[in-house]
């Protein structure tokens, strides 16, 4: 009854796909977080002059990721950029993360009470010293849970890169399903791998949060 043609090679193939998923997630989170911190601080501190930035980022939040992948991939060919599919995926996911991260950072910065900033300025801290010493540490505690959420979301959204020809965990699983015709088993295994990857992130995040909360 439990006979299966699923082999160790198949599992290895899926784990290779999982590695691509991890790489895509890490690279796009690094790009998106760096850009998101800059954009988010700008949005919070200069709300009026950065309204155009908000419009641009809204596009990346509003258009389905799949469409963004396909459009950007087409654009790449039209413009004649000789980029790998992986590079395209990183750019598109990076912009997508930037758009969400900007809002997360913005709300974090806005959560720092103005009176605290006045207190630090009254001690003689400059505008930038206040940002660095007071605003950023406090904002990051507020923003952190949202950022972890984003990370977990992106890890699963990376599955869409299969549409531009990258073999990541879900695509690898589909390939195996097509061959051995055991979708339930294969998808369970794929789901388990996603689950374990997410669990590690969530646990690390929770641990960091409790450490911060002990102080408050």
């Amino acid at each position: 009854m439990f006979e299966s043609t699923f082999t160790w090679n198949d599992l290895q193939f899926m784990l290779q796909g999982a590695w691509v998923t991890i790489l895509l997630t890490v690279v796009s989170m690094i790009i998106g977080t760096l850009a998101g911190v800059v954009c988010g601080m700008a949005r919070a501190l200069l709300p009026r002059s950065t309204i155009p930035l908000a419009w641009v980022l809204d596009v990346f939040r509003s258009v389905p990721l799949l469409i963004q992948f396909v459009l950007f991939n087409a654009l790449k060919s039209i413009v004649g950029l000789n980029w790998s599919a992986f590079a395209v995926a990183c750019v598109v996911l990076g912009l997508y993360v930037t758009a969400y991260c900007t809002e997360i950072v913005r709300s974090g910065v806005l959560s720092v009470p103005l009176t605290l900033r006045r207190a630090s300025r009254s001690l003689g801290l400059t505008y930038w010293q206040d940002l660095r010493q007071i605003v950023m540490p406090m904002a990051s505690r507020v923003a952190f849970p949202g950022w972890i959420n984003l990370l977990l979301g992106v890890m699963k959204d990376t599955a869409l890169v299969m549409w531009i020809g990258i073999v990541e965990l879900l695509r690898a699983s589909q390939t195996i399903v097509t061959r051995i015709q055991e979708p339930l088993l294969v998808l369970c295994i794929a789901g388990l791998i996603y689950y374990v990857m997410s669990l590690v992130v969530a646990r690390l995040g929770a641990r960091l949060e409790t450490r911060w909360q002990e102080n408050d």
Partner: protein
Amino acid sequence: MIEIDNVHKSFGELEVIKGVSLQVNKGEVVSIIGGSGSGKSTLLMCINGLESIKSGSIRVDGTEVHARGTDINKLRQKIGIVFQQWNAFPHLTVLENVMLAPRTVLGKSKAEAEALAVKQLTHVGLGDKLKVFPGKLSGGQQQRMAIARALAMSPDYMLFDEATSALDPQLVGEVLDTMRMLAEDGMTMILVTHEIRFARDVSDRVAFFRNGLVHEIGTPDQVIGHPQRPETADFLRSIN
């Protein structure tokens, strides 16, 4: 010396300070009393440049606070301010709260800043709370920490903006004692306060603010003991 000369200040349409002049000499303790909305807290914020002014001038040791060329961060180093909401930095320990400005602003070494912070915190009676986060302290302790934090910059002037108003009644005394200690050490202070008895005890002069103006000013005995203007007497009666 702090010289306030015919200062006007508005928030939008609302004029909250309507031409205040006041001089505070070195070593003097001046209390400002008055109803809410009389502009007394706003004036303190103007003195260290946290608020702009519409017209007039404020000079601290001859330096114009609101002039374009003034290095406001430099000027603020000599004006400590303690707020009604004590404004402890919640992500830093008590010790780190006090060390922050000496390290970042004055560029002191970690050891120097720590020695300084420990000294100030011991002075206000928090020598045993160094490694504690402010969230674990009572309001009175947090306010004393805020005083130590301001003192760690060795300011020449201390401004207190209703420093005891947000405290539970049983915690007011410990903060007032700390302020009294400072006054006895010869610190130049401006206190915005509702603690009339305290103001009478420690002040050299008391100013009664009303509708954005200095309504009456003089020694505590004059203003609080024998007010000349009926509004001052009314105010004193209303809060007793």
